[in-house]
């Protein structure tokens, strides 16, 4: 999975790109773990994720749990159509946060 991280004014923003599925979850887990350690606040932008499967959904759910445990303020924003469809199918359309400050 491609991940681009940028920092702006103490806020970390991670763009997830391309595919998050069973073939890349192992690697993605490391990337996401690293990202969470970058600061006390992080936004995950999901607009670039063109493919996602149950393994990917599970990974994102687990990321949110980790963030809570680490007391990191973490948001999941701008899901791509595919991502939204997947989460809805699995009954978790409520997963995403409204982006208050559009970038």
């Amino acid at each position, binding site marked *: 999975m491609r991940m681009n991280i940028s920092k702006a004014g103490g806020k970390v923003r991670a763009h997830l790109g391309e595919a998050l599925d*069973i073939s890349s979850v192992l690697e993605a887990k490391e990337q996401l773990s690293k990202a969470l350690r970058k600061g006390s606040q992080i936004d995950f932008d999901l607009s670039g994720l063109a493919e996602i499967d*149950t393994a990917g959904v599970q*990974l994102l759910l687990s990321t949110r749990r980790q963030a809570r445990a680490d007391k990191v303020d973490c948001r999941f924003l701008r899901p791509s159509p595919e991502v939204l469809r997947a989460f809805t199918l699995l009954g978790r359309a409520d997963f995403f946060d409204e982006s208050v400050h559009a970038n």
Partner: protein
Amino acid sequence: MDMAAARATLVQESRELLSEMENALLEMERNGTSEEGVHAVFRAAHTIKGSAGLFGLEHVVRFTHSMESVLDGVRAGRAEMSAELLALMVDCGDHLSSLIDAVEQGILDRDPDSERAGALLDRLSPPVADSGSRALTERVIETRAEEIASPRAVLNDAWHISLRLARDVLKSGMDPMSFLNYLSGLGEVLAVELLEDDLPPLSELDPEILHLGIEVRFSSEATRQQIEAAFEFVSEGSLIRILPPHARIEEYLEFLRTMPESDRRLGEILVACGALTPNELEKVLAFQRESGEKPIGKIFVEERIVPPVVVETALRKQAVTKASSRDIRVVKVEAEKLDILIDLVGELVIASAAARVAALGEGAKASAEAVGTLATLVEEIRDSALGLRMVPIGEVFQRFPRMVRDISRDLGKSVELVISGAEAELDKSMVDRIADPLTHIVRNSLDHGLETEAVRIAAGKPAQGTISFNAYHETGSIVIEVSDDGAGIRRDKVLAKAIERGIAQAGQELTDREILNLVFEAGFSTADSVSDLSGRGVGMDVVRRNVEALRGEIELQSVEGQGTTTRLRLPLTLAIIDGFHFLVGKSSYVVPLDMVKECADLVESDLHGGIVRFRGEPLPVIQLRKLFSVDEPPSRRRSLVVAQHGSQRVGLVVDQLAGELQAVIKPLGPMFRNLRAVGGTTILGNGSVALILDIPRLAQIAVETSAERDLGRTIFFSKKQEVPSCN
């Protein structure tokens, strides 16, 4: 389906069950009735009934059903398992056994001895009067129960599907989302609830494993089968529950119980996806609270939903299936297939040895290592394969309690059979052949050895006599002892009879051992009256012959007034043995490794003819070069191989020690059968033939004759011609 083969299985299994039944009954006769024992008897009868039913063997079904009903009464506390009833059950077991024998003979439609059956059924009948009407009532009640069930249906008019897919489902390339998509094609997915309770945070997560559960509410006209088919490829290791629309509330109760999550938690999920209304959930949880740990069946009964009889039947059915599935830890294999396997393993052992020789010859280190690994594995396979053939001797022993009980009753004597060492194993092929000799020995004890109660009490012995079986392993053999605490063998009577039969001469001086061994002579019997049990025709000579045919030995020990012990020693068979290889001249010989006690350099000055001084003690020796007429000059430094069999030791003088090997025993052809010292041959890794020495015989030879020049003659005598002992 091959009916004949299936019937053969029925016969065999029934016989095994009948044997278990008999053991349980005899055990209860000895030590009092027990719940376990009654259940074992019931289970045997019930299982036979079921199998007989499958084959349409109505007469067997009817008979076992009667037994079953009585036993059921005992289990339910309505009747007592008295001594009378126990004896009756033993008789019924016998009749059942004859029915099974008849089935084996092809008599499938009737009882060949209906008179006996009738008599037994009459004795069984008083408690059985209700059985017919009860069966009818059961059927009626079952249908009514189904009608009663409907008012307890839930409102949910959609299917509820619960998915706890196997953890590795993602790695197998399957995805729960595709199942959900598929379902959408069959109907409408109304709601999905994800169970994330087992999902760990990122640091502890294995991302390739599925940690999520899924609950689905699904509306569809499809049949249950069509819905199940959606999950056809994922089933293994996955827990998939499908509840139909308007399922009964008890089904949800049961569903909650089988799920790992807490009832309330799962209950809330069910409400969340619309499977249950909040009201219905409360009802279910209330059920749970009030009933606590009570099994579902009981809850149903107390709610007066289902009459007790139906529940009991259902639960019993469950218990029987559980019991029979627990027994499936054994695989039946045709003995022939095992033999083929053992043969192949034998060839494998030889081939492996040859490979080893070749690799060492070439000096290539890598090959030698690989071949070494191979040899170790082959050894393990060999041990495993041989182990397959070993069965506990208890299998043979267990035939005897019944025999002892019956015969002792017939003779008016009180005798108990005590068994120990039943776990000692021996080769399967021996099991059948050892039964006859043991039977005869036991009958001898019962008939001649053990006294009547009156005589025993007068002699100050306990009124009840004891026969004991004992078995244990000892240096490559299995030893079986049959002992009794009876009158022992009367030496004077034996001698008198032997003289009468011309087997011995008056005035001959015989050692105690020699007198006892007279018992093994043909035509010998000291019975004052010939009973139909023993003493006519079948003597101890046949017993000894049978034992020796198994390459075994038999020995008698007896103290007059105290008792007799018959000891049999049999080899643990071995088609393949661990051997010790040495050379005399250029010829190779092998002896069983576990019979080799020690090897040492031979101090020539300590060797005197047939004796060598070894560790300060005299040890009988065999000079193999004399025995086998070896021409090559002896090596300058000869070795002594000290072998032991039982209590006998013998030293073998050899030229060169060659080390350990695995030997596949190839039997000698008929021409060589009478060679006393050789028990078989084997092919060495280099292709040459080695003779396998028969240590027990050699030990005997060494003891019997110590003069070197007689050894040459001895080897060619068969057992029948005794070598006159030389001093």
